[in-house]
């Protein structure tokens, strides 16, 4: 099996990557500004709905139900899609999915493909596989195009180029589109992208898309977007290949009534995104006449097996938790080493690939709970983070000092006498490090803790000591 999440397995640990990024003030400014805009918009349109909590609850329950019967719904989807003229393929991991897609393209002798935003394809490293086979992929989502032409990485689930400002985008476009001149207004840049991509939309015969939802009952696929590049990709080429994570299936068409309300509001702060495309198999005389769906596992079954963190698979990729997260807003998305960044990335990446490759990610959070509060399908991210931290520790993968420290703490906390003794000893030991009632630096392996925070010294009297003293004074009276 070759389960992988892009090249997240080789990514540096979160603290190391984050430290480097925190020095990039331009990036931090771009990220802060952009997340603030989306958060405000989201708050406004969510506040409009008096039934928002009921929609969240319904979304959560639909997803939980689907996962409970996932085998049934996948088979039902396959049958309905096949009946409507589609071809369904099953891929256990990244390599199998890439091989299936390459063989479809090979049979067509395709040299180029147009792509509409699919993070799942980033997950399996599809673009690398295509390029290695001599096939040129054209990303058509404006932000993805900026990332692709800038030889960059996505830093946000919904707005992948959010870390770039207009001047940076202008420089990338000028260089890579071979333009003689280009303004730096967002309009100028958008027009340049329109002109660059239009010729490709009208000419290239094969498209690759992801899917926001796959309806089991009808075999329909739904793609949610804003720019029209999604419509171009799913309705102009002769051949369409749609890569679908197995968790994207929903039972019935009517279930869209929940997600088409919660997704746009959470993702971009719109009541409805400009375009949704919903199609079922092949339509004679309209759109692609060859349609493939690749159902991808790539670690998802592993997530499904852990009932304590299964709801990670509820995610509809809206990115609201990124915008709400105080950690993400400081570091941006690159620190997470994966196309899935922010709080959801911190729980999804380590579960899809093995924990040892991303053991620092469950710690990339202050557990403030803002992510859970905004999640449109009520994924309890803080709880899952704690669950994963426990797994990291149990596997002995936690940093050495922390593991030793935690084990020692467990030993001490188990026994009241031991705790009292430890408190007394600590009071003596901390004296040399205390200045003005604060400890700013601890020595040796404890220095990691105080590198980022000040400590309040252990008080002169513990609660137990105070209680005993009080009781004995009462006894005296």
């Amino acid at each position, binding site marked *: 099996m070759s389960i992988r999440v892009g090249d997240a397995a080789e990514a540096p640990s979160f603290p190391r990557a984050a430290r480097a990024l925190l020095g990039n003030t331009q990036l931090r400014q771009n990220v802060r500004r952009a997340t603030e805009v989306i958060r405000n918009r989201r708050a406004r349109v969510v506040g409009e709905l008096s039934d928002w909590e009921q929609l969240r609850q319904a979304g959560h*329950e639909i997803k939980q139900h689907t996962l409970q019967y996932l085998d049934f719904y996948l088979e039902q989807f396959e049958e309905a899609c096949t009946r409507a003229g589609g071809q369904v393929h099953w891929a256990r991991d990244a390599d199998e999915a890439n091989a299936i897609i390459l063989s479809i393209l090979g049979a067509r002798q395709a040299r180029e493909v147009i792509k509409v935003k699919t993070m799942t394809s980033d997950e399996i490293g599809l673009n690398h596989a295509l390029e290695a086979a001599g096939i040129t992929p054209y990303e058509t989502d404006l932000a993805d195009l900026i990332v692709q032409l800038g030889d960059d990485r996505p830093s946000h689930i919904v707005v992948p180029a959010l870390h770039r400002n*207009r001047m940076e985008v202008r420089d990338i476009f000028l260089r890579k589109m071979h333009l003689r001149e280009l303004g730096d207004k*967002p309009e100028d840049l958008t027009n340049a992208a*329109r002109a660059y991509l239009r010729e490709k939309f009208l000419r290239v015969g094969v498209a690759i898309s992801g899917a926001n939802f796959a309806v089991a009952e009808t075999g329909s696929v739904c793609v949610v977007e804003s720019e029209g*590049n999604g419509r171009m990709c799913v309705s102009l080429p002769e051949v369409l290949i749609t890569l679908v994570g197995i968790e994207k299936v929903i039972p019935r068409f009517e279930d869209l009534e*929940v997600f088409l309300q919660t997704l746009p509001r959470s993702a971009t702060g719109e009541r409805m995104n400009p*375009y949704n495309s919903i199609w079922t198999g092949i339509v004679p005389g309209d759109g692609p006449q060859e349609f493939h769906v690749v159902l991808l596992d790539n670690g998802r*079954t592993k997530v*499904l097996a852990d009932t304590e963190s299964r709801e990670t698979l509820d995610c509809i990729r809206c990115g609201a938790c990124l915008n709400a997260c105080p950690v993400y807003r400081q570091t941006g998305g690159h620190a997470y080493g994966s196309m899935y960044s922010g709080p959801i990335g911190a729980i999804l990446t380590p579960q899809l690939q093995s924990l040892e490759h991303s053991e620092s990610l469950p710690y990339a959070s202050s557990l403030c709970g803002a992510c859970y509060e905004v999640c449109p399908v009520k994924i309890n991210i803080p709880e899952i983070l704690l669950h994963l931290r426990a797994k990291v520790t149990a596997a002995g993968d936690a940093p050495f000092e922390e593991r030793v420290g935690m084990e020692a703490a467990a030993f001490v906390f188990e026994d009241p006498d031991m705790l009292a003794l430890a408190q007394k000893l600590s009071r003596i030991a901390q004296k040399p490090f205390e200045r003005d009632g604060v400890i700013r630096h601890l020595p040796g392996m404890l220095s990691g803790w105080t590198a980022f925070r000040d400590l309040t010294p252990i008080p002169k009297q513990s609660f137990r000591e105070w209680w005993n003293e009080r009781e004995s004074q009462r006894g005296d009276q």
Partner: protein
Amino acid sequence: MNERSEMLEGIRRAIGSRGSDRESDYASIRRGYHQALPIDLPECVHLFVDRLHDYDATVHFCPVEGIAATVAAVLSGRRKHSLLVPPQLPPDWMPSNFEFIRDTGLSYGHIDRSEGVLTGCAIAIAATGTIVLRHSAGEGRRALTLIPDYHLCVVFEHQIVGTVPEGIRLMSEFGRAPITTISGPSATADIEMTRIKGVHGPRTLDVILVA
């Protein structure tokens, strides 16, 4: 064992035991959200128009017998002379002093060089200002309302429903027809979160609302 059965087998193992049967588990999903809005049709129409204005779409009003005259007025205002139309657009929507080219399998290049397209729609949703196409013979295949830079769409008041759930219920009866929902002209906010109207879909959307 092939990939398919191995995947399904793995999924069944991962799920483990299931408490109740699927149908009753699905039926137990709590759907406490609003199905409809507590407003009448005139208020619904008003809300729809409000939403369209929010999206910078232009809305024109007319009675049933005034569609062609309104199309003429809108096109004159936009300085357009020739539009594409789907194969079965009602003839009485098309004023005589303009050119209308029926799409009988035009090439993408041809559609790309056109001045725009005039179509009807299947339904509309007031709460989100959404126009829904099912790409019937009166709405045209998907390419027809996508490639041109200008879309003039005729919406009848009786086609408007209040909420997304009401709209989805009607859409679920469209069978295998492809569906496109349009909520304002295409847009992006990918550069510095500045909303730019018009990327790849029609940059201008005009709506004629028929009483």
